[in-house]
């Protein structure tokens, strides 16, 4: 699971949970995989990303590195920033561990890099 995906997931549909976001990450294995950088793509992604959630997620698994706490206003032209964003969004990968609902504490196991977010019928 990449942090871009984490940025997009919520446990809101669990019965009794009102926001369910962001999910807590308990990682037992994290990998960094270099992938081809496409500055146009990353700059289009930035407005869709909840930046503080991305920053906190990276920090919570020990990978905040030199990631800025806030996205700069000139992000579209800021190649250096876009490269850091690229790394955080699509290069850092949680291979195993759990995602945890911040309200109910429900755990969603991650194995082989795949979060299992299947709910039982009595949960929603």
């Amino acid at each position: 699971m990449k942090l871009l995906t984490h940025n997009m997931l919520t446990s809101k549909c669990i019965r009794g949970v009102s926001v369910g976001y962001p999910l807590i990450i308990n990682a037992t294995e994290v990998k960094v995989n270099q992938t081809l950088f496409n500055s146009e793509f990353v700059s289009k992604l930035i407005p869709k990303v909840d930046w503080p959630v991305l920053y906190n997620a990276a920090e919570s698994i020990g990978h905040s590195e030199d990631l800025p706490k806030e996205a700069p206003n000139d992000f579209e032209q800021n190649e250096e920033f876009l490269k850091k964003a690229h790394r955080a969004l699509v290069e850092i990968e949680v291979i195993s561990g759990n995602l945890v609902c911040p309200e109910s504490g429900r755990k969603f196991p991650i194995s082989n890099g795949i979060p299992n977010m299947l709910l039982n019928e009595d949960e929603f």
Partner: protein
Amino acid sequence: MGLPTPLYDLKDFPDVYEPSEDSHLFLDALEADQESILARSPKLACEIGSGSGILITGLAQLLKNSCAYFSTDINFSACRATAKTALINNSYVESVAMDLLGMFRSPFDVILFNPPYVVTESDEIMGRGLDRAYAGGCGGREIIDKFLATLPSMLSENGVCYLLLLKENNVEDIKEKIRGLGLKGRMVLERKIPGEHLFVFKYFR
């Protein structure tokens, strides 16, 4: 440009849907509509019920690294098969086990769904195995209808959804439903194979 059928290897995943006529019709529909997909310059794409993963991987081969790819399935083996298929084809798909798009909070620019469309008894929609690839319940519509109800909130402003349907799903009734949801629809391809008359529709704003 042709859209080659992605390579796949399901030998470790006997409980995953083997790409069939419906899957190939879907790939042909994506190929036929590729100019229109490229023109939308999508950034986030997701396939629901990805099975082997050949549809989302096919899309990834078309759009390359201009877009991020996601997939969901209620069958965990299918999620693993999808991740593997992407890798075999030098692509990357973020696979998540979930029901439809229920755990995503934000909309997608492209949604693909080759749903379980076969008319069955409702109680055949059971478990999380291979039966769920087919069993559509009443009119073959139970999963399709559940999905369509969530579509307006999961489709981005400039987004497009491709959905495969069977004639028995009552295509005319679904057209009405799409209008009622405030979306537009168009048929991309249809094909008659022994025993099934299949369609791929696209929906957008």
